[in-house]
């Protein structure tokens, strides 16, 4: 089972993993990644996540197909939320299932690196003092994270 979703509501990590594994005895490893809204400075009321409807789903499906071509995956789920998300809440979920742990780990990390740099989502800060803060800036390290997938990769 391979699924991609963009939604305003929260997701259920355990339910997604259960659905992937239901009735199967050939899956040996499941890796999940949950990205959460952080507030290190204590000034953030919420992040507003804007997205490009249609393209967001298409890009997520594209990177998922890329991961399927690279590793022997038995299932995967990508869920990305949009709208207002408060500190401590979930933003993004990646679940990968495979016979082998190495494939599940590599695919999950690959999917996150690509989601960060290719999926059309943008974060804007809403501050506790009622003002609207800045748009979160893209990080160089996110582009650099892609480089390691351009040559050899683990299997």
């Amino acid at each position, binding site marked *: 089972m391979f699924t991609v979703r963009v939604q305003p509501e929260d997701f259920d990590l355990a339910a997604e993993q259960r659905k992937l594994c239901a009735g199967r005895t050939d899956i040996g490893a499941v890796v999940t990644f949950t990205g959460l809204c952080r507030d290190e400075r204590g000034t953030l009321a919420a992040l507003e*996540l804007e997205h*490009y409807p249609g*393209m967001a789903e298409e890009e997520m499906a594209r990177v998922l197909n890329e991961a399927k071509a690279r590793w022997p995956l038995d299932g995967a789920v990508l869920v*990305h939320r949009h709208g207002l998300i408060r500190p401590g809440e979930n933003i993004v979920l990646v679940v990968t299932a495979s016979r082998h742990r190495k494939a599940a780990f590599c695919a999950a990390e690959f999917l*996150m690196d690509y989601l960060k740099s290719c999926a*059309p989502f943008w*974060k804007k800060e809403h501050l506790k003092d009622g003002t609207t803060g800045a748009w*979160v800036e*893209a990080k160089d390290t996110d582009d650099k994270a892609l480089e390691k997938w351009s040559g050899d990769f683990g299997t």
Partner: protein
Amino acid sequence: MSLKLVYFAWVRERIGKPEEHVELPPSVVTIGDLIAWLTMRGEEYAYAFENAPLIRAAIDKAHVKHDAPIAGAREIAFFPPMTGG
């Protein structure tokens, strides 16, 4: 050529609208040409595209570079580098 343009994040905020329809002269061949053409339309566009190389573009919901031809496009999007995940 008639086209739908869509804008996101601070590109949208600077231009002041989420989308619009435009009629393009035949001289506009690539994404780069389109950015140059938009920049001439007013201050808000000049502000949005002031650092043009930074701006990302998509044709019909697929990422493209600035030298991509726009012939046949129905919807072109402009937005800042993505910050999802």
